[in-house]
């Protein structure tokens, strides 16, 4: 007994955890239901907001969103580790077995430089040169006399797959200085280094640029990288943002998917600078 008296810290934490445990019991009284989502870090922030709104309309439902990349999202949906995967690229043939994909919005991939970088446009040939290590200084493409800090995306990221496919290069040919994982990390790296370049979700980049992050979105093939050009279908590097579920969808999840694809969340999709579905 005296031991307990000398351990107020333990008691405090035990009490505190008792509180959280208690609220869980309340939740169970209301038959708490959880929908777990995992996957693309491009779609995740939007899914979180859609989830919050869905929770408000459906008391007792909890939407839990984890990031981890598109491949992970698709795989987790296939194995049933989560109810709903998120992907920011089309499913490959090898992945289509036993799952269904639901488009939630459209997005593109664009190249980014720091806002202070005088280079405002790069040709596809120049971009290929930068990423394969043939062009190493900004002065070679009409910029400052400084080394190009080339930031690549981690293996398995959908942007890497899209870009290498678009440029017809092998991921192994890429000669980069740094690696970024999630979208936000890449944006942050470019925003904090005047000589950096990377590629990223158009929606995420436009959202950050609009909120004052010092980045500039480079046009591709002369087409401005923006929500408008992605929506209009003129931007050359666009992609769908998908939910992935197993073939058989439970009632609650199908309601969530329906809600996510409805006009009721168009304002959220636009707020994240993605392109709402054409209905």
């Amino acid at each position: 007994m005296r031991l307990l008296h000398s351990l107020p810290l333990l008691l405090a934490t035990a009490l505190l955890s008792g509180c959280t445990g208690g609220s869980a019991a309340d939740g169970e009284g209301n038959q708490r239901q959880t929908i777990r989502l995992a996957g693309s870090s491009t779609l995740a922030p939007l899914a979180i907001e859609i989830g919050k709104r869905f929770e408000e309309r459906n008391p007792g439902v909890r939407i839990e969103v984890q990031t981890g990349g598109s491949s992970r999202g698709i795989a987790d949906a296939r194995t049933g580790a989560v109810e709903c995967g998120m992907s920011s690229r089309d499913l490959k043939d090898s992945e289509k077995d036993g799952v269904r994909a639901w488009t939630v919005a459209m997005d593109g991939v664009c190249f980014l430089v720091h806002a202070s970088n005088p280079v405002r446009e790069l040709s596809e040939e120049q971009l290929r040169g930068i990423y394969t290590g043939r062009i190493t200084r900004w002065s070679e493409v009409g910029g400052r006399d400084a080394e190009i800090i080339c930031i690549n995306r981690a293996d398995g990221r959908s942007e890497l797959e899209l870009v290498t496919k678009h440029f017809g290069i092998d991921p192994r040919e890429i000669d980069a200085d740094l690696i970024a994982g999630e979208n936000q990390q890449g944006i942050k790296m470019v925003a904090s280094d005047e000589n950096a370049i990377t590629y990223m979700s158009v929606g995420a980049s436009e959202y950050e640029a609009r909120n004052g992050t010092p980045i500039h979105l480079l046009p591709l093939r002369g087409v401005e990288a923006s929500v408008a050009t992605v929506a209009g279908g003129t931007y050359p590097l666009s992609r769908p943002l998908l939910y992935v579920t197993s073939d058989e969808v439970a009632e609650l999840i199908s309601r969530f998917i329906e809600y996510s694809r409805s006009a009721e969340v168009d304002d959220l999709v636009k707020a994240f600078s993605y392109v709402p579905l054409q209905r």
Partner: protein
Amino acid sequence: MSLSSVDGRVLWLLRLMGAASCALVVLILFFLISDSIPALRELGPRLVHDESWHPRELAANGTYGMLPIVIGSLTVTLGAIALAAPLGLGSAIFCQFYAPRPVATVYRRLVELLAGIPSVVYGFWGLAILAPLIAEVLRPPGHSMFAGILVVAVMILPTIALISESALAAVPRATVMGAAALGMGRWSILRSIVLPSARGGILTATILGVARAVGETMAVVMVCGNIVKVPGSVFDSVRTLTANIALEMGYSLGTHRSALFVSGLLLLLTAIGLTLLVAWVERRDPLNGGGGTRG
């Protein structure tokens, strides 16, 4: 003392608990090995021979050359220990033999605080302050092996300082005072008496420093740049075994996930090896090694 029947039952309960604590090591080893087996079986020597690290879910689609990552871990560790070992030892000597008593007390407290700062805070400092500084003063991009070495060195310095200090303190005072009475200078006493007899403890301190440096994850992820390539200079980006796991575990699948467990297994075996090394040093040098590990 004889054991009553209650004692007997309690003893068995306690033994069970002790065995459970022991079994944890076996359990960790078992899970790391069992999740490593797919990669070891499918890839085998490819883990060494493949020319690059481009892992995929299916073994046939990717390349799994782990060598540059192992080299990254080794270079960062060696660099950090080369910096931190002399500084840590110097710091311990300062505390024991050079600083006036009040200064030594404050200084030791400061080193202890340094030891308690979370690695993510060191990493954040490296990311926000050190890397931009290196980019500006030395060479861009700043996120580099050099930044990693500096941050890890700062992190393991307290470990080395505190453990070698307890080794220095264990040297019998009488010997030291005797030498002083003979008119030997401070450094002569240190060099010819104190340091040789504290050798075992200092070695233990260094080995434990190596163990921490090899295992350090967050700070390294944040400042090293994480490109998988054998670094050509200290200003190049590197990726370590720990960083590799932290970066890719979240989305890895199939053979890729298994290959990450292989790197985890490698780290675990390194830890076991270093522990055995410490045990060996302590057995060979029981007088001085002993105080060390109970840090």
